């Protein structure tokens, strides 16, 4: 054995994996809806809950849903929960200023849209129960970007944020079952 001091061997091993898959038919239709300014979901034939975007099944009843169960929901809803994120610099973080990350329960839907920005109101006034409506991108600027079969899709490529409707707050019992 050598008497030389031991040194840790450090090696870089950068991994890059690429995944490609066509959008499922359900999400394809969901995207088509967003392009037209419509938000589509499926209503479970058993429990009547509405999922936006649709999954093709109800996770509570384990019943399959199809286009026959399609419903359109409103682009207005209620903030059920939120956090104000103060970004710290890390790889991939593009935000530099504090921003809102809110769950919005659309009128007619039983599933929150997660991770929505709330604009047109100071951060310290964002609250659960706040009534909001979608701030749509102009049709020409909407896309399918960020909508994948894995994340069940989002609305971020068509709706930039939600903004207060100035209606009275929704009472907690209206969204208590949907806190997230």
């Amino acid at each position, binding site marked *: 054995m050598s008497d030389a001091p031991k040194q840790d061997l450090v090696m870089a*091993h950068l991994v890059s994996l690429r995944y*490609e898959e066509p959008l*499922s038919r359900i999400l394809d239709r969901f995207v088509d809806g967003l392009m037209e300014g419509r938000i589509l979901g499926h209503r479970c034939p058993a429990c009547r809950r509405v999922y936006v975007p649709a*999954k*093709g*099944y109800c996770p*509570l*009843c*384990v019943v399959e849903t199809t286009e026959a169960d399609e419903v359109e929901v409103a682009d207005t809803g209620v903030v059920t929960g939120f956090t104000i994120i103060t970004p710290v610099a890390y790889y991939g973080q593009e935000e530099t200023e504090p921003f809102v990350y809110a769950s919005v329960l659309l009128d007619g839907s039983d599933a929150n849209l997660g991770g929505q920005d709330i604009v047109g109101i100071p951060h310290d006034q964002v609250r659960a129960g706040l009534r909001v409506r979608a701030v749509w991108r102009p049709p020409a600027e909407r896309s399918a970007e960020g909508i994948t079969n*894995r994340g069940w899709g989002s609305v971020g490529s068509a709706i930039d944020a939600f903004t207060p409707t100035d209606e009275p707050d929704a009472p907690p019992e209206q969204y208590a079952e949907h806190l997230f």
Partner: protein
Amino acid sequence: MAATDIAVIGFAQTPAERRAEGNEVQLLVPTVSAALAMAGLDRREVGFTCAGSCDYLTGGPFAFVQNLEAAGAWPPIEESHVEMDGAWALYEAWVRLQHGDIDTALVFGSGKSSPADPAALWPQQLDPYTLAPLGVDPVSLAALQARSLIHRGLATERDFAEVAVRSRRAALANPHAQVRGEADVEALLAEPYVRDPLRRHDLPPISDGAVAVVLARGDRAQALCARPAWIRGIDHRIEVHQPGMRDLTESPSTTLAAERAGYDGGPLDVAELSAVFSPQEGILRRALALPEGTDANPSGGPLAANPVMATGLVRIAEVAARIIDGRADRGLAHATGGQLLQHNLVCLMEGR
């Protein structure tokens, strides 16, 4: 209660497809429901649920959590997951059933190989210091194994082609198979190498698919199924990771797992082997000392359909299917994980 009174009483699988439209949970929803329906069991009666899948395949952290929706996780259920083939999920459920407080279990395995490039993905399961940086893919590794067999005089390229011909022919009767048909050995041998000495027919197809199996214990199994496929023994053993430190022409862990599963070398009506590359069938036949006349891979095996993370559990389902419907009395299923038969599981099943 004995460890030998646990049986397969239901199963279902998707067809293996080169590119399935649905994501894993969408493949699993109807599959799990069909397996439970065959077992005559309501999902709320299931005592324990265990799933096998691979987040690297799915392409998302914690992707396996979503798959649980196929089992119906509300009201909350008792469940677990293995980042392994579904055959190991079945092993965990088999252990769990032996606690004695529950008498049914649901297991499933699922995987979609279509979204990513398997040659880029699978090197990531190798030792990150010496093997993964080389980018050595499963086909290259399998070619090294095939070359070892040829050098030892244990097999020829013709033997490999004959395995593929038998597999494709057997798969004609398998509605879930992806590669099937009559093929001619000479014609196959005239094809170019993909990785010398392997040709395309020596490789499994790239498949998307899912499988679900229902287990029950003792009286419950008998009440639910006219002829349960009793698991007489199940065991799994693993070998050293580095292919260079193993004799690639044999599979001692398979031999040991079979021994510990109680396989005594007696007659078998059916054996389903996870010979993912054609040369591995011979290795496994020798490791298991399969008796002459054993119907090996009557489903066509992984050369006909290879939904990774489900492939091993499909072997168990295929053997169980033949016992439950009375075509077989005694069968053996083999599953594998890791590279080049590194980790092997053997499940011995009987109709009585």
